[in-house]
């Protein structure tokens, strides 16, 4: 599994590097990390810091988080309507909108205006996108000629989380289809050395992720 996709928590980890605006309620010198310098923190002065730091501060009640622009009711509502309108493809949303919105909804519900509606809208958008994915996958397969293989599928504006969720079954299925079509087997049964190196590397690579 790990061979071909990132896990949801790994993607969340990546998303936590997104910068976000917080309003601290404490005074502190700059924090210096390998990834950069954040601060100094002055009460009531908005400052941009990475999401992971923001959430960590929020958990200690040291700041309020300002949700990103796109995470407001109006913006999400219009995205949702657009998502419903187009049947081919997906509307554009930030690369990590799923992870960010879920992190914010769970960690700072009191900083989000209209939280119930926003939560519902995000659920709806995700649901709509997922059913569109299934539909376009099915259309794509049905549109193929009898002997045409599944090579590429294009998902425009598909987020990292969504891609990684469908990648394992898609890639595995597409590979098997390719093998059925391009087997010129039967003749060389003993590709020993090649497959030997494959098997031994397999279990190693799956761990390094």
């Amino acid at each position, binding site marked *: 599994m790990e061979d071909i996709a990132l896990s949801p928590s*790994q993607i969340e980890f990546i998303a936590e590097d997104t910068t976000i605006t917080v309003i601290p309620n404490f005074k502190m010198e700059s924090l210096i990390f390998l990834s950069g310098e954040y601060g100094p923190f002055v009460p009531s002065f908005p400052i941009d810091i990475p999401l992971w730091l923001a959430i960590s501060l929020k958990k200690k009640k040291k700041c309020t988080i300002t949700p990103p622009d796109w995470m407001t009711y109006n913006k999400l509502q219009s995205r949702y309507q657009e998502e419903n309108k187009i049947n081919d493809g997906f509307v554009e949303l930030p690369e990590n909108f799923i992870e960010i919105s879920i992190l914010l909804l769970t960690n700072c519900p009191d900083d989000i205006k209209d939280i119930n509606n926003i939560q519902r809208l995000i659920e709806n958008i995700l649901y709509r996108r997922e059913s569109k994915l299934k539909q376009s996958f099915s259309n794509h397969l049905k549109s193929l000629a009898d002997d045409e293989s599944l090579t590429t599928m294009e998902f425009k504006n598909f987020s990292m989380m969504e891609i990684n969720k469908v990648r394992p079954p898609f890639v595995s299925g597409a590979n098997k289809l390719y093998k059925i079509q391009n087997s010129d087997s039967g003749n060389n049964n003993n590709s020993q050395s090649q497959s030997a190196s494959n098997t031994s590397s397999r*279990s190693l690579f799956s*761990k390094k992720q």
Partner: protein
Amino acid sequence: MFTKKAIDLIIELRSTDSIPHYNDGSIKATIDEIIALYEDLIKTITEHKEQKKEPYYLTHAITFHNSINRDKRCILAYLNERLNRIKEFRWSSGQSLLPDLLKEKLSQNEIQFFSDYDKILTEYNSKVGLDLTVDPQPPKELYIEVRVIKELGEVVLNSGCTVNLNLNTTHFLKRSDITTLVKNGSLEHIL
């Protein structure tokens, strides 16, 4: 029919995701079969040197030769798959020692393999200064709360501190210190 025992070995592996008992009997039987097939093959070829290209003998040679290769392939695949699962165990459990019940299932060579493999991994981990088996997924908290579900008594942790891990007590500890204990079921992570 030839290769019956060899195929049984493979079926045994397919039927489970864990590591079944090392089937010494079937392996030996398969090796004996290989020897018998080989001797028969050589004997036939040498005894009928003149006629060995006739279909009457060639069919025999092809069948025996392929059966020998088949037996060999099954044994190698059996051993290889078991080694993969043993490595998998080392990674997923994070343990340097084999639990007795698993140890019973392995052959002497496999036990040796595990300890050699462990040595390499442990050495690498200590040189890098990071136990790679501990957090395959990004950890959220540096410290976690755990409940002891198996009496361990006084334990010195990696980071040097000593704790009394007595039954049913809860502790707030460094995650990397105790992940192994959680994985083997001695502690339970409380969210």
